[in-house]
Every structure is written in structure tokens, then in C-alpha cells.
């Protein structure tokens, strides 16, 4: 029996010729990422429980402050101080102002064929360029920081073939929301989810990122898209070793699911679960108080471009606050150059420094009881962005912006 891409990458990192699903193997880790929320706990485990003195490789452990920047409380400041001192002691780099961890890892570190661990659920995003990447808890992460290794149970792979051409106003975000609606939050528990099909081939890497980012919301262990020419193009000039793995011809998937998205309508995940997905038309008209565009799911340049096109020479609804947070400083700078940021300000939006912002809900744009937000982020759990009596809807950037203009959930085609 042949191997899937995910199995091949795991085998390579386990120094084995072959691995099979459910086998437990020890693997070498290429990159180990931590963010400001998880660093302070890790420091204690790393030094006091494991007794490590230094990291396995100073170049391969990456600290990124993104969830609470700039610090929003004394506790946060203390946490950042701990993180900064920890990094200083270990001699590793801290990204204090570069953007959301997953976007920064994507822009600066990972490459096809890598095996990456991160102390954050949405680490699964890196499958978009053929990387096996998994989110882990702080104890596992501490062990990896000290040894460069971890153990993994090889996941079974579910293959999702997506074909067809999207209608106007429908995006990759709608596709992944629709898949989560179908398979539910537990539909891919501890499975590798591999996306393929004509539709996926047509997607930009950024859109593939959106698909892979949300695999965790169906319980997936990791996500995978076979790298193609678009990925090769991105890495061709990089002076690093990278490798593209392909699935064997005789590979057996746990399951192959087929989706034709030609008739798909804009989707929204309704309160308070990511898999509570409905066709937007069924909830159109729900009044909103706040809209958020950003996050690792949909805070990239193509997302901002969609928003800028919709907002050009328009004003957001008077009762709505629109918060826009680019996913990284590179995206922010390019958005400035292209005039998107100016368009957003003219429309009445508030722009903040790249970071997790409202998606994480600790400081910026908190919701009070009774308030409703539409967001391009990936989670809408009860109280995620403030009061437990607030409500969060997830949608595509276009849906977010169309709704911000109209003060209520709105089909983006109405603004096109």
C-alpha cells in the first residue's frame, strides 16, 4: 500500500522508509513556534519540570507575540516580559510586532516538506504549501524545544476533492465553512485532511491557507494540499532545501469526499459553533454592531483587496464599527502602498497593528451583552470576543464588508 503526502513527510522525519496510519513514531521537528499566550507557561515547564538549559537549535525555535500586542493589561505586560527574558536567555529571536504567528511562519520560516509544531491550534494552516504542521500543548512544545523531537501517531487521511467554479460573491472561506457544516466539528478528528481537485488547483496559496487554517475546526490533526507550480514558483529563488512530496498511486485514503461547489451560496457560521453553518440568505438582515476583517484565516492582501474594492467611495453603516487588522506587517505595508488602508479609513474603519486582535478577544473590539459581530476569523465560540451574551457570525471578507456597509448580514453580491 502506498503512502499519502502526510505519511511520506512523517516517514522522512522519522528516518523511516515507510509509516502506516495509527503507527506511533518519533519525528524530528523542523520548526517549533510559540506565541505570547503560551510562552509563559512553557518557560516554567521547560526549566522547572524538564530541567532543560537550552533549546535544541536557536534558529528553529520561534517566538511570536501576536495575541496581545500591544500589551492590554499588566498581566499581559508581565507575560511579555517573561517571554522576552526567556528568549534572551535562550538566544532566540522574538517577533514582537511582525503579525499573526501563522502568517509570520508562512512568510519567514516554513518550506514545503517541513514538519512543524506550534503551540496554537491553527498551526495546521501550513498544509497550504505541503507542510505537515500540528498544534500542540505547552508540555509537548517544551519537550520539542529541548530535544527537537516529538512523538506522533500517524493520522489517517481523508481526501476532499473539490470541483466546480464558484459563483460571484462566493469564496474559499465559504467552501471551508460549507465543508465543516457537512462533516461537523468532529468529522475529521485526528485525521489528516487533504484537499484536491480542480477547484483547489485554481486557488491562490492565500486561499489554500484559508482552507487549511480551518481544518482544526473539524477536528483535523493536520491539513495538506499537494504543492504545485504556484508553490514551486514561491520557493524557486529561496536559497534553502525544500522538497515536494506526492502521494503514491496506490495510496488508500480513509475516505474520499466529493464536493461540487458550483451552486454554493455565501455561507456563515452562526452562534455559537463553527459547524453551525447556514446559507447566508437564511440569516440575511440580522443586525450587526461590529465587523472584523483580519486574522490568520482572512487577513491577507487578497482579502484586503476584496474589502477595498467593496469599500471604495463608500461609508460603513453609522451604527457599525469596522475593525481591520492586516495579518502581517508585510501585508500592512503593501496595503498602505496600494491605497487600501486609506480607502478603509475614508470608509470609517479603524485599522490596527497586525496581530490577532478581536479574533482572540482579549483586548481590541470587545463585545458587550447583546452585541453582534460578523468576522472573517475562524472561531465564534460563546464569549470568544467579549460578553457571553454577545453573538459572532463567521463569513468571508466580502460578506463581512457588505454587512458593515449595510449594518446587517448582507449577501456581498449586493455590493458588487
Amino acid at each position: 500500500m502506498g503512502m499519502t503526502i502526510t505519511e511520506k513527510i512523517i516517514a522522512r522525519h522519522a528516518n523511516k522508509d515507510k509509516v502506516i496510519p495509527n503507527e506511533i513514531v518519533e519525528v524530528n521537528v523542523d520548526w517549533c513556534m510559540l506565541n505570547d499566550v503560551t510562552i509563559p507557561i512553557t518557560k516554567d515547564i521547560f526549566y522547572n519540570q524538564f530541567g532543560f538549559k537550552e533549546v535544541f537549535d536557536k534558529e528553529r525555535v520561534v517566538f511570536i507575540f501576536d495575541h496581545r500586542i500591544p500589551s492590554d493589561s499588566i498581566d499581559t505586560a508581565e507575560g511579555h516580559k517573561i517571554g522576552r527574558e526567556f528568549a534572551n536567555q535562550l538566544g532566540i529571536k522574538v517577533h514582537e510586532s511582525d503579525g499573526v504567528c501563522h502568517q509570520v511562519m508562512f512568510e519567514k520560516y516554513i518550506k514545503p516538506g517541513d514538519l512543524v509544531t506550534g503551540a496554537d491550534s491553527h498551526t495546521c494552516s501550513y498544509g497550504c504549501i505541503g507542510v505537515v504542521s500540528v498544534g500542540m500543548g505547552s508540555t509537548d512544545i517544551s519537550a520539542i524545544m529541548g530535544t527537537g523531537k516529538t512523538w506522533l501517531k500517524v493520522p489517517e487521511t481523508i481526501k476532499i476533492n473539490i470541483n466546480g467554479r464558484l459563483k460571484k460573491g462566493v469564496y474559499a472561506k465559504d467552501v471551508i465553512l460549507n465543508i465543516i457544516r457537512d462533516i461537523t466539528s468532529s468529522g475529521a478528528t485526528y485525521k489528516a485532511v487533504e484537499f484536491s481537485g480542480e477547484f483547489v488547483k485554481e486557488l491562490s496559496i492565500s486561499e489554500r491557507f484559508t482552507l487549511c487554517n480551518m481544518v482544526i475546526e473539524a477536528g483535523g490533526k493536520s491539513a495538506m494540499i499537494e504543492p504545485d507550480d504556484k508553490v514551486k514558483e514561491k520557493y524557486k529563488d529561496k536559497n534553502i532545501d525544500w522538497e515536494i512530496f506526492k502521494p503514491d498511486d496506490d495510496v488508500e485514503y480513509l475516505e474520499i469526499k466529493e464536493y461540487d461547489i458550483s451552486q454554493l451560496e455565501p455561507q456563515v457560521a452562526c452562534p455559537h459553533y463553527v459547524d453551525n453553518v447556514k446559507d447566508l440568505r437564511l440569516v440575511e438582515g440580522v443586525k450587526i454592531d461590529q465587523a472584523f476583517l483580519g486574522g490568520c484565516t482572512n487577513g491577507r492582501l487578497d482579502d484586503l483587496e476584496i474589502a477595498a474594492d467593496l469599500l471604495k467611495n463608500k461609508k460603513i453603516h453609522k451604527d457599525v464599527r469596522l475593525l481591520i487588522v492586516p495579518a502581517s506587517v508585510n501585508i500592512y505595508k503593501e496595503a498602505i502602498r496600494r491605497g487600501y488602508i486609506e480607502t478603509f479609513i475614508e470608509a470609517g474603519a479603524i485599522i490596527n497593528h497586525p496581530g490577532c486582535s478581536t479574533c482572540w478577544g482579549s483586548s481590541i473590539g470587545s463585545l458587550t451583552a447583546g452585541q453582534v459581530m460578523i468576522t472573517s476569523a475562524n472561531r465564534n465560540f460563546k464569549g470568544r470576543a467579549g460578553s457571553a451574551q454577545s453573538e459572532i457570525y463567521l463569513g468571508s471578507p466580502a460578506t463581512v464588508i457588505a454587512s458593515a456597509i449595510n449594518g446587517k448580514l448582507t449577501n456581498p453580491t449586493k455590493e458588487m
Partner: protein
Amino acid sequence: MGMTITEKIIAAHSGEKNVIPGQILTVNVDKVFTHDIFFTGVHNAFKEKNCNVWDPDKIIIVVDHELPASSIFSGDIYQSMVKFVQEQNIKNLYYGEGVCHQIIPEQGHVRPGEIFVGTDSHTVTYGALTALATGIGSTEMAEIWKTGKIWLKVPETIKFVFTGQLGKNVYSKDIILYLIGKMRSHGCVYNAVEFCGKPIEDLSMSERFTLTNMVVEMGAKNGIVPFDQKTKDYLIERNITDYTVYENDSDAVFKETFYIDASEILPQVSGPNGVDDVKSITEVEGMKIHQGYIGSCTNGRLEDLRVAANILKGKKIAPYIKLIVSPASQTVYKQAIKEGIIETFIDAGAVVTNPGCNLCYGTHGGVLGENEVAICSNNRNFPGRLGHKNSKVFLASPATVACSVLEGKIVDPRKYV
């Protein structure tokens, strides 16, 4: 007996021909504002009066302190504000446009000769436009919402006359810190403070706002910069031509007049023990810092960002040091984008927040932890103001902040001329 500018403005608003210091008078106010922090207090006091506001066009409401909502509580205030302005037909509600004291003059809400009150200490800022502007409490504001009037005791005026010329990389922030160091926090309690002389005439409007912004830190009731061509130009840019200019009578009586040679003023640093704990840069140079902050109604304007960006251009802030930049308004932010200033900050490693009070108010935007030391361009450094009660905050000009974050310690900006 002649009158000062402040006395003349009060006289004109009270219907009296002549007023004298110490006299208590009821005056008509021209415009008022309240922001998100005190809105609830004013609103509650106003609701007890069971009436409508005296003039909806003269009331301004600003959301700037906790923005975007930094807690569930701050989100709640915005909802009641929206309801209130809709009920009372108030059109001037600013959400996310920037710090109140920046946007109110910037949007043309202040004219020379007017009386302007707000529920914020730094309302004194607008004295740079030769208006009488002062901060008041919430219950007083509720009464003004009803009547459009307030009573005032006519303040005595203290005059600061400057001679000489400011040195390179010495700014109006250094002038006002220097004065606060001399007068201490109580040196001008309930006095009008007037600035004059060639070095003041040489200041841009932006620098004048910095000056008047901080007069409350020495206890002053209001600050005044006399009207001149620069004031006029600032108003013309906002299509404001209809106003009254008041000048001091030649026989006006001042409580005290101080003469200061501006060329003697070095870059100043205030802190960490209160705003009036002011030292020359040479006494605190080399102090290790963890964070810098450029922003606020004191020094978050375009000129301030330009000064800082010129210093930071092509450089990186020191390792493990943070720099937080909060433009004072969306207008400032947009222009800073156009001039490449924001890109310079980002490339230097700064975090650029949305316009608003942010860290100066201490609820978010770079809150300090225990024992952290920061150098900031804002106006207050009381214990715990910007975070932990055992953090230390030094106040200085944007130039001093920018130079300091490059080296991770307090640096004399004259080195970077």
C-alpha cells in the same frame, strides 16, 4: 484697569463690560464635549433633569479612550451613547476618529474668543487658538447640557515671556516640561497662563497645542497663546473666518510675569515621581528603558511623527525594546501613511495602533508590567497610570523618545541632530 485676554473672553460671555479676577460670573459656553470615560456620569446626571439638551449642535461626543472597546464594559458605553445622540439629535459623535483634543480643533470646532468646556483635564489644549478652554466635572456638564451656561470665577493671569531661541532638537514639549519643573504641579492653581515672546511666535500651531495641553499639569485653569498669522492660517484651512480676537490691554494686570531665555532650555525629562519631577536630559541620560510611546493629544500630531520618523529612518529599535506609536487622529494617520512615516515606524520595529488615547490612558495599547521603564511623549506619568504601580514613566519630546528606543536607554536627542 485693563483686562487680559482671558478676562475679556469671560466678560464677553457674561454680558459684563468689565470683569476682575476673583469675580464669580455665569457665562454662556460656545461648545462642550464629553468622551467615553465620563459619558455615563454626565448622562446619568442629565437624565435626572428630565429635559432636552439646550442646543444639539453645540454638543460633541467622542469615543477615544477605550477604543476599540478594550473591555465588555467599554462596549456598553458606546451603545448608550448612540441611543443618546439619536434621541437628542446630536450630530457630532466621533468614534475612532482620534483623540478628542486633536479632532476637536482639527475638525474646526474651536474658534478664537470662545469659551469651550469639556469633561477632560486636557481641554485646556484649545487655548492655543486663543480660546478659553477648560476641563470640568460630570455634574457640571449635565447642567450645561440643559442650560448652555456655567459659572466661573475669573482667574488671575500669569504671563511667561520668552526671549532667545530654542536649541536644535529642543521642542515646545521641553519648554512646557521646563515650566512645570519650575512652577511644580500647584504653581498656577486656578490661574490663566499666557505664553508670549518671539520663541512662542516661532512655534507652529502643532507645537502650541503641546504647550497649552500641559498647563493643567501646573494647576492652571486655562492656557493662552496670543492670536497671530499662524492661528489665522490654521483657521482658514478649516474655513473659519468668523471669530473675535482678543488682545491684552496695555494696562492689563498680571498676577506675575516670568522672563525665560529659551536658549537656556535643554531637552527635559519628567519623572518618574509625578509630572513636576522634571530634570534636564543630562541628569537622566543612560537610564535603561523597556518601552517608548509616541502619541496622545500632547505629541501625537503629524509634526511629532515626522520628527520621530526622521530619527528612526533606516534604523531598528534596540533588541527587546518596544516602541508603540499612536497617531492622534485618522487625519494624522492618513497623512503619515502618505509621507511614508508609518512604513518607517513599521520597518524600525514599532507597533502602530489605531488613533486614540491608547497607552496614555493606560487601559490598553502597551500597558506596562512591574518594574518596566518607559519613555513617553504624553502628558502624565502618575504611579500606575500606564500599567503596574511599580512601573516607571518618563515624559519627554517625541525626539527624545525616538532616540532612546534606538539605544534602549534615555538619550540626549541633541546627539542626533
